């Protein structure tokens, strides 16, 4: 049932992607939201690897793309976490509700 083939790998990648999306939409902490974004990205990355392995096994372009994407994701995560820390320092709170009321100013 769980053969190692393209269809199953892509299904796994979609499931990871959807899990990430679910987290993105439902988590209340900004850190968890950031984490969910990483999960979404990894779902996409997994599809890249799968395509490369099953359709074009002799070359490794998919892996390069995957590493690029990881690098971008790392940078993005660093920025996102930085923002979350600043946000926490300012408001003693990193919930999405507080973030939605940014326009209202301090406290």
């Amino acid at each position, binding site marked *: 049932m769980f053969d190692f083939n393209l269809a199953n790998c892509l299904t796994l990648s979609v499931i990871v992607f959807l899990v990430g*999306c679910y987290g*993105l*939409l439902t988590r209340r902490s900004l850190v968890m*939201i950031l984490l969910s974004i990483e999960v979404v990205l990894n779902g996409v990355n997994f599809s890249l690897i799968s395509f490369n392995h099953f359709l074009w096994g002799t070359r490794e372009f998919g892996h390069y793309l995957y590493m690029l994407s990881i690098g971008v994701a790392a940078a993005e995560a660093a920025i996102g976490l930085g923002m979350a820390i600043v946000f926490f320092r300012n408001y003693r709170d990193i919930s*999405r509700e507080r973030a*939605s*009321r*940014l*326009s209202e100013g301090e406290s």
Partner: protein
Amino acid sequence: MPPVALALLPVFPAATALILALFGRRFNHTLVGLVACVGVALSFLVGVGFVSSVSGGAESTYVLGSWLSTNVVSASLALRLDSVAFAMVMLVSGFGFLITLYSIGYMHDDSEVARFFASLNLFVASMLILVLADNLLLIFLGWEGVGVCSYLLIGHYWKDQAVPLAAYRAFFTNRIGDLLFLLGVAFLFAHFGTFEMHAIATKAAGLSAESVDGNSLAAWGALLILGGAFAKSAQAPLHVWLPDAMAGPTPVSALIHAATMVTAGVYLVARLSPLYALFPQIRGVIYICALLTLVIGAVLAVVQFDIKKILAYSTLSNLGLMFLALAADSPGAARLHLFGHAAFKALLFLGAGSVILAAHHEQDVRKLAGVLKHLPITRAAFWIGCIGGVGLVPFLAAGFFSKEMVLEAVAESPLTLGSLVVSGETLKWIITAVEVLSAVYMFRLLGYLESNVPGEAAKGRHGHAPHEDSLTVKLVLGILCVVGLGFGFISAPASFGGSGSGFFAMINGGEQMPEGPSFLHALPAAIVALIVSTLTFRVFSNASKRKALLRRLANFPQSSGGPLATKFFFDVVYEAALFAPLRALGRFCASVVESVAEGGFELLGGAGQVGSALLRLVMNGKIQHYAAVLLAAVFLMLLLLPGR
């Protein structure tokens, strides 16, 4: 001079105008004036360089390039210098230079000299384009240019409330004329197939009056162009702007509203005189309007108290005289009077400027009474100018021979308009009678200024009598005195033993000077003018006699609405027939625009508010809403991907 130098003539003053407009504020007053003088002087010198080619009878043409070129219409940017244009170039650049030089002294205290001199230079450039262009379209460029500069310069003292109105008046009256002019150009093009003036004149000269349909396009074109010329040269019924134009600085009145710009209409009609020779009916129209202007100018000049207004109405009268010569199909006489008038009227205006300067901008002759005693050079200028203006003495008076020549021309050309026919002799006597009034207004002015009892402005301030202290003012007045005197000599016809034929031939493109008036012919009118002048002068220069006369005149029933007070009802008629309806129309349009615009803007504002309210619903600042929208969009795009 190579023909290419023709282009330099207008370019020099235009360049200095540009320099002054851009950097003039940083220069000091004298430098501004000097730059302006240099521009005009260079033009004058280049013009002088053409004297040898022109005196040989040659014409120089320089084509800068093609302007319009289609299957139907073609016009080139061509400058053409024949001896007629050469004389005008000398007049414009020569007087332009002298008056610019004069202005350095006159405008010394002004705070906006850069704008003044830039406009003055631009005026000279436009006027040079006007006289050099052979192409009616290019003439229109110069025509508009001088109109704009005239507007700018009339409005120079814009802080005074009445001044902008005077400037508007001049501008709008000229707009009417410009419209007619442009229509006329189109009609002439439709008939003759060319914009070139000399080509039109040549073609018209080849026709005879009998063979031409009086209702043709050419006739209507000639009539419409006449409308433009009437506005520019202030002929009734489009004369109303000229007296108001005296609101500008006095040198401007001398250069633009006496010597050069107002003669542009005369110049144009004289150039096209073979065309007008074909249509006696149109010349009848010129006769009527010019006679009207002559009378209005002469009569109103007698009752004015503003020194510049007196001169302005006298200018009107003299322009009427030039148009009378044109109506009599004698462009030569018109041009001769144009030059003579420029000589004495510029002198008078600049003299008036000197008086106004010495009296701290007082213009009322009653207050200026006796002021000339303190101003020797101005005094000489006024005497020479007044004698020249009345045409009192042959040789010494600039206007004597030119006026006689106009009268001679009129005497030979009857007025015909519809069924109205007036013989030339009758016209001549009417004009002679009106011209006697010129002796009255000129010597009334002179009498006031030479009065034995000084007026309040002539007593001076702080114990100082009025005095001439500007060097350039005195210098230019001196030069113009010589010009004014000299003109009487160079315009003298052979019948007086004079040598005017050379000058006459030059300003008229080689045309021979007519026989000229015999001395006996001119004698009676001259004697009458002399007697009237002497009487007027003696009465007005003596304060007690003057007061007695004015008291007696005051007994005449002269209601405030009389013809003299309302300038022969022109203002009243224009107010009722034109301005009141126009104002009502303007108010109506304004109210319509206001309500429509107001409603429109309300609508726009409402739409903006609704739109922003809708957008606010989406832009609620909740991060996960944004994320949800983003993901929804992604899935939507996935669904829309072309599937297999």
